């Protein structure tokens, strides 16, 4: 079963119910370091083996596990949607395990990283080989065993006014980046401009609010980097700049449980671009929730 957006308690309950109704002798849990997971209630006699998701590819983990996983083993994949590449080695190694048992539980906060296509990776954990090389199709949400608790997001833009002089500096920086690109990757330009725009927001940072930025360059006690935010830390953060990779922002949302994303915006084009990208991501997420509700479980 694939479970989307469940709380900690709901996950534990799902596992308890599953163990009560199936003849399981071993539970193997895969979870990335960023989202550790402990199964609280394991009946006596059942062997519990937790593993870091990234260790799957190591010989010392991969081969011994292949030997012990059988049709009475329950595999739990917790927040293992870490790649959009269906040829990724770690994910493909995990498939080998899933082939050896019919008992698989998949827990994930969001059904996608960036695109609905990413959901196929979760499906592949649950149904290894069944949808090999097939693309995403909303009808799959009805065919397979999927449980979904939607998390809805709204965006609030907080103005960080900047002077005309700063706008001119932004334009100058932009031209400088294009001119100096040489053989570099053009996709680095928006990343660098977004950081530049972030620097212009320093004056708008309020001492009594919590902020999150791509790194710790502000050196202020109330500005944290995405990397430093602990799991389930809560907190009402305002975003100064977005991380470069979408998965990092998803992790941030999953860790903090934020539902209103407050963004400090200069109104510069680069901020608008990132804001637009976030808006589109929310739309895609909502469409998947709606498709799932419509295809009916």
């Amino acid at each position: 079963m694939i479970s989307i957006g469940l709380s900690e308690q709901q996950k534990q309950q799902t596992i308890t119910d599953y163990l009560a109704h199936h003849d399981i002798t071993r539970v193997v849990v895969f979870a990335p370091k960023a989202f550790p997971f402990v199964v609280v209630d394991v009946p006596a006699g059942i062997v519990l083996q937790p593993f870091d998701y990234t260790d799957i590819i190591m010989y010392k983990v991969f081969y011994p596990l292949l030997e012990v996983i059988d049709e009475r083993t329950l595999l739990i994949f917790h927040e293992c949607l870490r790649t959009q590449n269906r040829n990724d080695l770690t994910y493909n190694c995990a498939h080998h395990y899933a082939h050896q048992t019919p008992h698989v539980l998949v827990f994930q906060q969001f059904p996608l990283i960036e695109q609905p296509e990413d959901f196929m990776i979760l499906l592949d954990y649950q149904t290894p080989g069944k949808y090999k090389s097939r693309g995403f199709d909303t009808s799959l949400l009805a065919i397979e065993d999927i449980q979904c608790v939607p998390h809805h997001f709204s965006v609030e833009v907080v103005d960080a006014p900047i002077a005309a002089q700063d706008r001119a500096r932004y334009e100058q920086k932009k031209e400088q980046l294009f001119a100096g690109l040489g053989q570099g990757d053009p996709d680095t330009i928006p990343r660098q401009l977004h950081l530049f725009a972030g620097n212009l927001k320093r004056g708008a940072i309020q001492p009594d609010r919590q902020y999150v930025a791509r790194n710790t360059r502000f050196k202020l006690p109330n500005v944290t980097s995405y990397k430093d935010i602990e799991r389930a830390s809560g907190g009402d953060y305002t975003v100064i700049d977005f991380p470069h990779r979408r998965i990092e922002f998803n992790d941030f949302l999953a860790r903090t449980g934020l539902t209103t994303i407050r963004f400090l915006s200069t109104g510069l084009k680069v901020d608008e671009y990132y804001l637009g990208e976030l808006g589109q991501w929310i739309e895609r997420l909502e469409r998947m929730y709606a498709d799932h509700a419509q295809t009916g479980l």
Partner: protein
Amino acid sequence: MQTMRRQVYSQEECVLDAARRRISYIFDEFEQIIVSVSGGKDSTVLAHLALVEAHRRQRKIGIFFLDEEVVYDSTVRQIDYLMSLYPENTTRLWLQLEFHLTNATSLTEGQLIAWEAGKHKIWMRSKRSDSIQHPPWPRESETVRDKNKGFGFYDAIDNFQHARRDTAFLVGLRAVESMNRWRAVAKNPGYKDVYWCTAMPKGCASFYPLYDWNFHDIWKYLYDERVRYSRIYDYLYLKGAPLNEMRVSSLIHEKSFKSLVDLPEFEPKTYDRLVKRIGGVTIGHLYGKDAKMLRARSLPKGHASWRAYRDFLLATYPDESKRWIFARRYARHLDNEYVARQQCRQLLLNDYENDLPVDNQPDPREKAIQKWRALL
């Protein structure tokens, strides 16, 4: 509509049984059979399968090896081993003739003439007493593909094959190694209703009995049948080479020069002899895997763009007789950074034959730059 070709697994017959069946069919259909070998794992398996069948039927088959001179010692030993497995069923076709080979690592010595007359003192090794040392085809009908290059490796193979009638040539081609090559040869049946072959003139055909074998099928066969294989594979394995680089290839041409990097470690004596034999070998050894040099992966300092670097390389190309070939070819190409990088690679590897063709496309970076200019 383009259909996707994919591997379909049969539960009824394994690839080994299928290959044995195919080889048996070839023996039923042809009196003359010649297996081409290179010393690699695939041709080793194919030769072994064919020899076992020849032995069972008490027949003789030809084992054909076109000796490039500049090959690993392990390759020479492997060929010797294959030709000695069933001597009573083997006709040795070990060719040691003069022909031209591209030398990718030297701009001043762009070609090697294998077994060049008068240079016997620096040959990699002496010719064998049992080898074929003169062209076994009529010289008056000899063909050459590229007169600029001269009589080359494929010319020797073409002429050897065209001089024969009603012969089955067996080749260890596997589809997973080169889908494009496989697609090219498997479009139509080459002999009767057989698709795993290519038709040739004078009643001959080239057959690929291992076409559906995978990498691990080859190794399983070698292990199960206790067949000896080239030691280079053991060295590559110990060095941690990935599967796609586990190959025993030539040492100096534009697609194989990377093997020079490890050669002194694997076979120091071969390397010593090669250094004396032809120029550019040390360059290949030092820079075969370097991103800035022969592979042209990153732009060296001192050149503002790939286009500028390409112009520099073309202007300073040392062989006047070949420069026009590049200049004429590049005049037909698009002028962008993406294309220019590939042109630099051709110039650095002395690829006047266009064996590493340039993908003449608009630069994908330009599209990205335009997009960001509009958005930001």
